[in-house]
């Protein structure tokens, strides 16, 4: 286990409510996912809504502990830690979410929001102020504005503040769950550049979750494709862009808007089964079988394993 972050057979189950439901439809939000992230790299996790990427992020950080499976952080097995030890270690792992409005307390001045983490780490008052000003400067917010409330800032600025707050803990690892999806296009580029600068300066490692393929393709070193709780394909960014293998990956990439509709293909209709039902049912089979362009009967009868087909390129498909 010499990778910085290692995840093995991670599972997160959500049970139905009620006595009778408990036995039946458990939703496999994260279904035995395994991958590793090297230090100082960006791992991009792509998938559509309901694929489990957010559940994975939360389980990984033990914010919502996984049902089973192992997570190693810099060699330490998180499952073995006591609550206190976990809390201590967690300072090194931070998360940035999509919506800065729900991440920032609207009643707290941003100075206070940023100070919280520092107070926990027992910094003296003047040192805290210094650090806060430094952080704000880093993310491009004027330190003079630290007495303002969140609603006085724009969306992009709020997201910068959230990033500053994550950095106040001096983490090594940052999970970014759709950090720019709510922002305007011209602001997105600013935040992306900021994230890259920070990564360089502080030698950070990122798990970057997004549904925006272009963005993930631009940023990531490694890319993982998730579908209905399972990791379907994983490879380096270059490899996956040049040789995508899994049928779902192919479908995703071909859906990226950029002049394809001239093909005159019919606009297919997605199956009328709710996502939760689909996830519940697909355990034990290939989850993509019912929509797969090259799927066969046998694909619905067993689960494909992740196999290595090239330089670190793994795919879970029977037909590859």
């Amino acid at each position: 286990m010499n990778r910085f972050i290692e995840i093995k057979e991670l599972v997160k189950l959500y049970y139905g409510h009620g006595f009778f439901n408990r036995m039946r439809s458990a939703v496999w939000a994260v279904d035995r996912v395994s991958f590793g992230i090297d230090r100082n790299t960006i791992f991009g996790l792509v998938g559509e809504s309901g694929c489990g990427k957010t559940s994975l992020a939360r389980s990984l950080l033990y914010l919502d502990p996984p049902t089973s499976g192992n997570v190693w952080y810099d060699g330490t097995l998180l499952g073995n830690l006591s609550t206190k030890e976990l809390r201590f270690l967690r300072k090194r792992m931070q998360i940035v979410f999509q919506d800065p409005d729900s991440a920032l307390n609207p009643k707290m001045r941003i100075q206070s929001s940023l100070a919280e983490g520092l107070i926990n780490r027992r910094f003296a008052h003047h040192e805290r102020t210094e650090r806060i000003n430094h952080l704000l400067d880093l993310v491009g917010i004027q330190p003079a504005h630290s007495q303002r409330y969140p609603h006085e800032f724009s969306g992009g600025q709020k997201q910068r503040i959230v990033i500053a707050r994550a950095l106040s803990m001096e983490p090594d690892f940052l999970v970014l769950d759709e950090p720019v999806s709510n922002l305007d296009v011209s602001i997105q580029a600013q935040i992306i550049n900021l994230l890259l600068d920070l990564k360089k300066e502080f030698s950070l490692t990122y798990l970057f979750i997004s549904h925006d393929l272009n963005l993930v393709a631009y940023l990531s070193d490694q890319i993982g494709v998730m579908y209905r709780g399972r990791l379907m394909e994983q490879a380096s960014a270059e490899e996956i862009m040049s040789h995508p293998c899994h049928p779902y990956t192919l479908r995703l990439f071909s859906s990226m808007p950029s002049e394809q509709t001239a093909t005159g293909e019919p606009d297919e209709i997605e199956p009328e089964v709710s996502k939760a039902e689909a996830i519940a049912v697909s355990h034990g089979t290939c989850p993509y079988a019912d929509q797969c362009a090259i799927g066969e009967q046998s694909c619905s009868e067993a689960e494909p394993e992740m196999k290595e087909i090239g330089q670190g390129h793994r795919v879970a498909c029977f037909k590859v």
Partner: protein
Amino acid sequence: METGENQLLHIKDLDVSFEHEQSTAHALRGIDLSLNAGETHALVGESGSGKTVTSMCIMGLLSVPPGKVNGGEIYFKGRNLLTLSETGRRKVRGKEIGMIFQEPSKYLNPAFKIGEQITETLILHLQVERKKATEQALELLSLVGLKESKRILKSYPHELSGGMKQRAMIAMAICCHPPLLIADEPTTALDVTLQLQILRLLLRLNATFSMGILFISHDLNVVKEISDRISVIYSGKIIESATKRQLFENPKHPYTKLLLQSIPDAKKRGTRLKAIPGMVPDAEHIPAGCSFHPRCPTVEPGCKYEIPPAVDLGDGHKAACYLTGKR
């Protein structure tokens, strides 16, 4: 400037503002936009640029206090919509101009079945009998790719998936076969694979019925899929207008150029994105002169005083910048 019989929609110098207690937000500062019959025209802009205000104005759905149309004309099939009475405008809505919106779960009435939400429009505008209207509704649902049309007709919105809801909303909007459909960010809330399906559907409808589409979006990539022409709106003014090809291969306005450069994609790996510094100005504090000048890398002293007029660069390509034509 194309004049012509096949000009379906022609917006001329439209000026709209919103008056609040302390300040006035100048949402549209004189925009020009033309759409021919059967053409797909994309209106691209970031939030606060005025694109939604434009669509609301065409439909006559602007909330009139605090909104106010200060000037300009909106010609639809030759008639200026702004001179019509409310009844006149209402007759155009739904019948001649249809509209679809961004989040179908919010924009569909949860208390009525899908069928009812389609047939009521047919009955109102086309005076069709209920039975016939139901038949037509079923046809429409199949037309937009919903195979289980009978079941969906009798379903409530919350029983359908996101993609299905969006298709249902499209069926509702086109039920009277309007010559113009306004699509306000219809794919923004959808997954990537669904997005493509909906775009294809819209193009199919456009081809089959020669239905003009005014497609509003902030996503240049999506717009590339669906448009013949593109108008870029910034701070209430159209700063560039061109065919798809012209815009992507040869953008003229600095904002358009920067916007295209700032969009990440695989080809730009390893390079730094050219982000546009600063923020989109809010409608209450618009910079003087060219509203983009505080953020423009090629700004010159003259840009701060007068609003640059649209320069015709030939072949229908226009850009509102003092520096076009010089390079």
